[in-house]
């Protein structure tokens, strides 16, 4: 089954454009980074940090915080921008991305306030999230465990091992959100290792599952607010997104999956494209 490109999303608002500009500034500061995968994540993370997750930037280890794991750790630039905006660390750190004297590396690290676990090696986030959710459930804690996975990441068997376990333990305090941008490093997920029928897979593995346009802020707010979708079941949200969203020339363009160097003129082009985005 060929992947469906999502219907036309609503136009990006100024906040979504601002976050994208910040992402480009981080890319510029580090001289490198995963761009396309960060851009597909922006609205998912924005909604989570604006209106879903409970946290306190002044007390990153507040016991009652919701646990958030960016399992697709290579999308970390988008997460760093949100965490900084919310006050977890100083703004100067953003432009020291991937530098020897900075705290922000190319993948999340729990040394950074607001980061729970090291991710980046794919297929690790959901098993860890299951352990955290089991721990919360058995002590009657109210917080939730939310993890964002990449679609390519779902090639990993450990994701499905953990999914079976989450269903077995009836973890309705756990949500797996998938950034389904339909592109992985080499090509489309359809060509490399087809995930379809994707939502049906999550359902079959015991998750109450919904699909949503991952760039529609209002729709995301509504879906995330409805988690857990069913008592006694973990929730899955398949977010249909576009890799490189908001930069016309980078959308679905695998050259922008990862950049190990970037020119000043490219930064200018990226900024212009964000200004022009609909």
């Amino acid at each position, binding site marked *: 089954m060929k992947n469906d490109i999502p219907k036309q999303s609503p136009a990006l608002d100024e906040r979504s454009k601002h976050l994208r500009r910040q992402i480009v500034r981080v890319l510029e500061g580090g001289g490198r980074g995963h761009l396309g995968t960060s851009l597909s994540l922006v609205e998912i993370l924005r909604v989570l940090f604006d209106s879903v997750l409970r946290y306190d930037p002044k007390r990153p280890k507040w016991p009652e915080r919701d646990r958030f794991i960016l399992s697709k750790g290579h999308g970390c630039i988008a997460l760093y921008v949100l965490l900084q905006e919310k006050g977890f660390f100083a703004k100067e750190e953003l432009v020291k991305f991937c530098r020897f004297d900075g705290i922000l590396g190319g993948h999340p690290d729990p040394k950074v306030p607001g980061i729970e*676990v090291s991710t980046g*090696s794919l297929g*690790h986030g959901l*098993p860890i999230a299951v*352990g*955290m959710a*089991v*721990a919360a459930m058995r002590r009657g804690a109210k917080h939730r465990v939310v993890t964002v996975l990449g679609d390519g990441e779902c090639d990993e068997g450990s994701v499905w*091992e953990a999914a079976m376990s989450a269903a077995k333990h009836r973890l309705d305090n756990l949500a797996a959100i998938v950034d389904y941008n339909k592109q992985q490093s080499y090509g489309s997920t359809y060509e490399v290792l087809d995930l379809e029928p994707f939502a049906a897979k999550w359902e079959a593995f015991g998750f109450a599952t919904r699909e949503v346009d991952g760039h529609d802020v209002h729709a995301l707010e509504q879906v995330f607010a409805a988690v857990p979708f069913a008592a006694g079941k973990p929730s899955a949200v398949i977010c249909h997104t576009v890799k490189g969203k908001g930069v016309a020339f980078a959308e679905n363009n695998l050259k922008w999956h990862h950049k190990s160097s970037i020119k000043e003129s490219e930064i200018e082009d990226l900024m212009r494209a964000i200004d022009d985005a609909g």
Partner: protein
Amino acid sequence: MRETCLDQVYELAKADPRITFIGSDLGVGTLRKFKEEMPERFYMEGISEAHLVGMAAGLALEGGIVYANTISTFITRRCFEQVAVDVCLHNLNVRLIGNGGGLVYAPLGPTHLAIEDISILRALPNMTIVAVADAEEMKRLMPQTVDYAGPIYIRLGKGYDPIVTSDAVPFRIGKGLHMREGGDVLLVTTGITLKVAQEAAKALAPGGVECAILHMPTIKPFDLELLLDLAGRVRAVIAIEENTILGGLGSAVAEAIAEAGFSPGKKFRRIGIPDVFSDRYGSQANLMDYHGINAGAVVSTARALLGHR
């Protein structure tokens, strides 16, 4: 040894609510009382070791002390990356209990022989590796694993191994045990090879070769100080292990001796599993003999190193 280890997990869990047990798909009835009495801390997660280790890490991140158990090969090489990233990188209180370390599963063939578990785990920062010699030593180890900071790999022997240790020398994780005095050769052991060394020392004594024995139940962190102290008193050192000769106890001893720069230098040999996959079945003892990990091999190696016939 396995029974003692799991009995201890049960006893320790009764006294400490932080303790959780996770197994993969262990034998029916394993830790039955644990499951009945503390079901909220007992998990059997299925044949899914990558997930199992990640889940253990998640529980440990929330303050748990997690004992995770399955066959050695499956809890080390099968999920090596989860052990490295989820457990060791985060320096979590996860205890990996590996059934059948070394050649225990001889009849089951090379898929089940944990020939390099010690070597691969030794390369991971923050990991502690323990291989005790018998059930009595296991009893001394386990209570110390509760409040020990960071991950531990506990390598289990066959079970019903003869008791060769005593509590005369206090057991501490990270410390070697000086089991026997002797001025000619130092035999360094871990796990069940302590018994091999004891037999060899006994066999060598009538011929005038005196062996010291240093038992290293903890291979990492390595008790360098005690090793170098004892090595300094002898002419020859032999490391004996039920693990590949690449990267395990013998390598740790060789590295220590080479870097210490003894003058005159020490004669040194490693006795262990050669760099091959086993091509025979039979019993653990059969394969130990087949690979030359027995008292006879230690005796001839010691004599050769000392220039005796």
